[in-house]
């Protein structure tokens, strides 16, 4: 996959992270931030705290490079890293022809589906919706990959691995691995393995013929 996010010769990717409160999105953004810092790059993260965390939609941003504002301007998102399928659709309006959408296929059915009898979209509907504006769509079974490593809670690390595997960030694998150790104290070995699973998955999906 060619590198997007070139601004004046430097790789300055803008990453938009979405999901549901409690999925470890802030931790994922901190791992990306520390990885960028380890690579000697400037980085700004914006985080969601407070009321929204009570099971609501959560948005974090990570901007790598020489920027002043942590919020990504419209049309400049390079990657949408989504931890939940419905949130992928909600975030897709921020996608443009430069945007790669990496989405976990995990479904956390919101109460509105039950109470207002609304329909939760299928994976194919999500893909079709995303591809109306985005450059590419990569679906990851993050829960299965995390469970395979015995860390069910680490789907966020799998997703960071999936992001790293695309090469879009311009950061090295060992920067991410060091950043994981800085941010996660328990079960580091398993978490690194979960990261590796996510990494291999996007590498595999991007190999011609597999996608």
């Amino acid at each position, binding site marked *: 996959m060619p590198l997007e996010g070139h601004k004046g010769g430097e790789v300055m990717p803008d990453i938009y992270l979405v999901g549901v409160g409690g999925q470890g999105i802030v931790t994922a953004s901190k791992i990306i931030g520390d990885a960028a810092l380890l690579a000697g790059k400037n980085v700004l993260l*914006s*985080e969601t*705290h407070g009321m929204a965390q009570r099971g*609501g939609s959560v948005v974090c941003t990570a901007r790598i490079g020489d920027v002043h*504002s*942590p919020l990504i*301007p*419209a049309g400049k998102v390079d990657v949408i890293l989504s931890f939940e399928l419905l949130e992928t659709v909600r975030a897709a*309006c921020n996608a443009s022809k430069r945007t790669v959408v990496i989405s976990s296929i995990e479904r956390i059915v919101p*109460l509105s589906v039950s109470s207002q009898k609304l329909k939760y979209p299928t994976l194919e509907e999500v893909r079709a919706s995303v591809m109306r504006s985005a450059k590419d769509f990569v679906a990851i079974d993050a829960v299965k990959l995390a469970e395979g490593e015995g860390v069910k809670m680490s789907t966020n690390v799998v997703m960071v691995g999936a992001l790293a595997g695309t090469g879009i960030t311009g950061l090295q694998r060992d920067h991410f691995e060091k950043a994981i150790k800085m941010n996660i104290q328990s079960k580091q070995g398993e978490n690194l393995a979960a990261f590796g699973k996510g990494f291999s998955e996007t590498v595999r999906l991007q190999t011609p013929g597999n996608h």
Partner: protein
Amino acid sequence: MLLLGNEAIARAALEAGVSVATTYPGTPASEIGDALARVAKDAGIYFEYSTNEMVATEFAIGAATSGVRALVSMKHVGVNVAADALITFAYTGTRGGFVLVTADDPSCHSSQNEQDNRYYALLAGLPLLEPSNPQECYEMTKEAFELSERLELPVIVRTTTRVSHVRGPVIVGEIVKGRKKMEFVKDPSRFVTVPAVARERHLVLLEKLKEAEDLAEISKFNEMHWIGKTGKRGIIASSAGSNYAMDSAHSLDIEVDILKLGFSHPLPSKLVGDFLKSHDVVLVVEELEPILENAVRALAQRQLLKTRIIGKSDGALPRAHEFDQNIVEAAIRKAFGIKGESTNVPMIPGGLPGRPPVLCAGCPHGATYFAVNKAVGKKAIFASDIGCYTLGVAPPYRTADLLICMGSSVGTAGGLAMVNDVPVIAFIGDSTFFHAGIPGLINAVHHGHRFLLMILDNRTTAMTGHQPNPGSAVGPSCCDVTAVSIEDVVKGCGVKWLRVVDPYDIKMTTETVKEAVAQEGVSVIIARRECILLARKDKTGVTAKKPHIDQTICDKCRICVDKFQCPAISSVDKVQSIDETLCAGCGVCTQICPSKAIKEEK
């Protein structure tokens, strides 16, 4: 290292040798206190989660007027509570450095209003620093202590959500231990603000403001950024607004001079005046109120300048909600006549299932609200308050009809009850009750108001990240605390009818509410059950048995999804089921199912 803006403020306070730090938690300020609470013991400082922002400020005033350095942090609306102390404190001034951090919340991400607290600097007459990123949070907080001691004035550091909750690289220094003990030197002609003293001290304050302006003129936080060679186009910006201005100038690839004001009150009139003189058109970029803009316009009038000034008053920039780069880019195009279309801000497509924040699976507030709805139906009026339980406003509970501010449930309930002939129920959390509910309760008892006050005691300040409150037996790392009994406080206020219930017991809670609303005068129910997030963490208070829905018995009445709201119970394709991972095992759903189809697993 990578620090949150709030963490950078806490770090800077430690490096400045702060001795005393206080707060009342509130988004987006909470992480300042949380960081200090964790390290207070090791750092050798005194830290407390005070009962409210007023007490937090007063406590710190006591310490700082004795000569030690003190930090007080709060969210923007917290300053309303602290304002009575703050404004007169500007008259007495301080001895030790005193820094008040206010974290504003443009766009009300987690707040009931988006007031602009820079007005407090104008109202009280205090120096104001406005960081725009974590590194500046760190540098300005350190500088604020120096400034405070030099001027002998409290100094306000004002952040916003996009400064406090931004994580970025910060270069830090060494932590310095502050002095723990001091001797208060008596000086009633300065510190006792009887009218004769206050009149004199106001004059002293005005003199100090002149000195502060001189310091603002030469402050390193008021800096010029020349982008290209212009001399014609200028931007004056502060806080997050300056970030958008800088990024916009680069993305539009234009030549413009940006005067970034970090020490913005008192306004450095020479610096700003010179900037105006040397530019034809100046755009003022600030979020929320046109405070800089009005000051700049007044300055231009005083100096009889012809510079064209553009901002909010001509509609180039909005006065409500936070900015983003697209908004600022559009304003720059308009101000300087730059051609091209700004990218439209994307719209989230309609028809998608919404995902607002909700009460958690196993939340005791949800059980309370279910019982209240059962007891009084829709006829009652519900006065709500600030906390997780405000989420009861949404269907199916709809248990919030009026919400203004911290503690308003108790005060407004009295007025509602006086002029309405239906039951009135006020809901307040344990932390909020201690914070601002007690005077309202005394008022209700004294005047014989008739309503039910339900104190939703989940043993913590949950919404802001589970900080302790006066009801807690464990405090921050530095200090032992004494748990204050809510029952004792309620009885001490003169309440005659008081019951304590476990909200997980739906039948008991429902019956008690029915009995309470039949009382003359004020009745109080304490609905006590630990926050489920804490209970799940320490594995107390929840049963290991997780219920399931027996589909052979379920008659699809939908009460479990239409009248009760639990994130673990869903209804997809007309079949109701319980998600075992999300289920907290509270067992409340087994009590509410009329056909007894929800059973605890063996």
